[in-house]
């Protein structure tokens, strides 16, 4: 125990309405690469943000070396030599690579910054890490992958941190850069640094890490040695045993609702660099799920269909009419509505009331000659508040004051009220508590499908299995697999999400097995 460099004791984080982390215990040994894995929304990022001092926990202790902290500020964490590289590269685009590397501690002689020294130092660090960049270039001119590597280098070589947190760094890296990342990690490890490596890709984690902690629903389930763990075992730990076989739930959707009439057909939708050749069809009354890891292109495809970020190529056919939607206004007229994954930024008008939000999409129906009929409006609003069981003091309460789950129900209600032909729901259960989640899913399964066809994604595959008739699996902007209701199995789909990655790394995995 004496060589634990970082320990978390009973760390909890409570948000209004949800519990992100519940009494998490974690101990990280000095000089190891410690993996943290879990499904989307399991609480991985919350956990490491607490360690890095970006957010403060609601309860528990953080023990670094032999000092105990109740909460860390970012500066505290820096003093304890903790660095974090986040999922989205956060470089300052207008500054040079050299400036980005040294910010905020510039080399200076007295009051003045010594630019020559900074640049030459930066250049030597970059080449030491095995990269080929000109330190005088603007960071904004680098590709996303290079930006991410730059930040890794900053954390590893410039800040000279003892604990380096890499939060799903590989998600934005190219294959070559990824190999470079592994090299850097090995090098730092041999120099005695401790690395916390977060990912939701099992093969990668097993390659890189010494030990791995599995997070499920805000709890640290277990910590295992990677050497004795197989990929299949790890997948089991991540998914848990609650949903071993989905056959009982898969049978549930009433088959009578689904017909063979095709409502929406998507033909070869392509946006270069994001997704390619997306073709599928949606039948009347069908609930179609899209599974895929973050960055697999789910949101981008949806935004392409409804014209928020129109696709470069391809078309969609609605009721046998081929169109190309170039703005949400057109999608609205074609009765295709999109529920955005980011409800606060894109879904709700936070400063308006529940009533005004719920009726935003059905204004023509509650008004005559553009003048709103308050009685009619009240009818609709009470109906949807009851139907969705929205907990609000009154319809006049501002949406801002509701909890996350109830906010989400308002967005769902807003879309349902319009009775669209197609509902495209991007993570309708994101960041809501279990009760609200069940409520939303059952509404989708029973009421919503009566009037609309539904396309849905979810942070958890088990949600999709619960409501969908069919699931398509996306990987790097392509549809790689399709499952019908009777084939649903959470583990199989979880594997399918990472399919191609497995092939790419097959050689390494074999190598590993051989060594083991």
């Amino acid at each position, binding site marked *: 125990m004496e060589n634990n460099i970082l320990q978390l004791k009973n760390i909890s984080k409570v948000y209004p309405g949800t519990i992100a982390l519940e009494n998490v215990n974690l101990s990280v040994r000095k000089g190891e690469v410690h993996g943290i894995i879990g499904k989307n929304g399991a609480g991985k990022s919350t956990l490491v943000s607490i360690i890095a001092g970006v957010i403060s926990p609601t309860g528990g202790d953080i023990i670094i070396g032999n000092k105990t902290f109740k909460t860390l500020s970012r500066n505290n964490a820096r003093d304890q030599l903790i660095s974090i590289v986040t999922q989205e590269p956060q470089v300052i685009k207008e500054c040079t690579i050299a400036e980005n590397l040294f910010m905020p501690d510039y080399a200076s002689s007295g009051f003045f910054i010594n630019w020559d020294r900074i640049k030459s130092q930066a250049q030597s660090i970059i080449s030491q890490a095995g990269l080929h960049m000109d330190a005088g270039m603007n960071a904004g001119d680098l590709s996303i992958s290079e930006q991410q590597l730059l930040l890794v280098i900053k954390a590893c070589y410039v800040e000279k941190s003892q604990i380096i947190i890499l939060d799903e760094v590989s998600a934005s890296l190219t294959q070559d850069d990824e190999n470079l990342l592994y090299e850097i990690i090995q090098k730092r490890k041999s120099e005695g640094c401790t690395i916390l490596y977060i990912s939701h890709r099992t093969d990668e984690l097993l390659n890189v890490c010494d030990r791995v902690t599995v997070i499920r629903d805000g709890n640290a389930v277990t910590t295992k040695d990677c050497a004795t763990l197989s990929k299949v075992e790890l997948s089991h730990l991540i998914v848990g045993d609650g949903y071993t076989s989905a056959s009982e739930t898969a049978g549930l959707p009433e088959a009578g609702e689904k017909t063979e009439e095709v409502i929406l057909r998507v033909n070869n939708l392509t946006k270069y660099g994001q997704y390619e050749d997306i073709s599928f069809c949606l039948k009347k009354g069908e609930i179609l799920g899209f599974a895929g890891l973050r960055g697999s292109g789910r949101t981008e495809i949806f935004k392409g269909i409804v014209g928020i970020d129109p696709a470069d190529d391809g078309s969609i056919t609605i009721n046998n009419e081929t169109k190309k939607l170039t703005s949400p206004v057109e999608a609205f007229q074609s009765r295709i509505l999109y529920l955005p994954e980011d409800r606060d930024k894109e879904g709700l008008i*936070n400063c308006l009331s529940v009533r005004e939000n719920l009726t935003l999409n059905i204004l023509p129906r509650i008004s005559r000659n553009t003048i709103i009929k308050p009685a009619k409006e009240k009818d609709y609003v009470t109906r949807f508040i009851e139907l969705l069981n929205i907990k609000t003091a009154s319809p006049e309460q501002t949406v801002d004051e509701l909890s996350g789950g109830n906010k989400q129900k308002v967005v769902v209600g807003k879309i349902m009220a319009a009775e669209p032909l197609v509902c495209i729901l991007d993570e309708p259960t994101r960041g809501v508590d279990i009760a609200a989640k069940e409520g939303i899913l059952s509404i989708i399964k029973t009421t919503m499908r009566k009037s609309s066809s539904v396309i849905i994604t979810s942070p958890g595959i088990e949600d999709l299995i619960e409501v969908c008739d069919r699931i398509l699996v996306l990987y790097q902007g392509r549809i790689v697999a399709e499952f019908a209701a009777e084939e649903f199995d959470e583990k199989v789909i979880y594997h399918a999400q990472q399919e191609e990655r497995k092939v790419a790394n097959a050689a390494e995995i074999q190598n590993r097995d051989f060594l083991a």
Partner: protein
Amino acid sequence: MPQKSKIAIFWLDNLIWVIVALFFLVNVFITPYFFSVNNIINIFYHSAIMSMLVLAEGIILILGKMDLSLEGILVFAPGVTMIMATKLIPGGLNPGLCIVLTLVMGGLLGLFNGYCVTRVGINPFLQTLSLNIMLRGFILFLLPFSIHPLSEIYTFAGKARLFDGLFPVAIPLVILIFAVFQFMMKYTTFGRKFMATGGNPRASFISGINTDRIIIMGFIISGVLAAFAGLLAAGKQDSISNAMGQNLLMVAFAGAILGGTSLDGGKGTIIGMFGGAILLAMITNSLNLLGVNVSLVYATEGALIFLAILLDRVKVRVKNNILQQNKMKEVLEHKKNMAVLPGE
């Protein structure tokens, strides 16, 4: 939410009327001649032009944009119309047509602003600033001397009085306009979309609202209102001069913000803006009656702008504080429940 916080938030949202009432009461006692029918009518009459500008600025602020060209439109629209009527077109123009032309000109200038802000993507601050300077420059060139006698019909809105010259028509006109806007924002589909666009343009766009069109409409309405303010100003002084509307713009901002409109967009009520305009007029009036130097009155107006912005910040902070505390209580309660459950 507890009743106490609800009441506190209600007062914060209607702060302007509290201030108006307090200020009125204080002046009744300390300012001579303040509390008389004539003076009160006077206050309303003098607030008419300002209140139109406050309304014009306020609805643009609700959209989360800003408009610095109102002052320029105020002088340019009636100025150019009357130059056409008196100098360019032989035989002149029908005064009724002049009124329409003035308002249309204001609308067109607003359309120009709205188009550049939405379709071209120019920052509204820069767009309207440059237009304002342009308009002011043009009018100084076109109108070196005032145009003096104006037709009775053209000056009707600004000058005419009812009941033996006691009661200016401008007052009921302005109140009517505020009432129409209040109704429009609350009970029409356009008003709903307008508030939604201001509150969260991205979410409104994704919901299928044509936000660009709403913003352009907002600028057009604001331009028409500014032109109407120009009509009132021309009527009041029975002439059109190039100095009309000078220094009014920033005070219009102050009025809108005092009235509870937020610079972040989405927040603000029409009635509040009316209150803001009345407060401004009352302050100027009482300072004049107290015999304060004109330059100091101007300085006071500057201080008012500062006060208005400060007030806005304090208000937001106090309100967030109340909401945050309520939320914290909720979470703690939740946590307590969670702690009890596993034990049982």
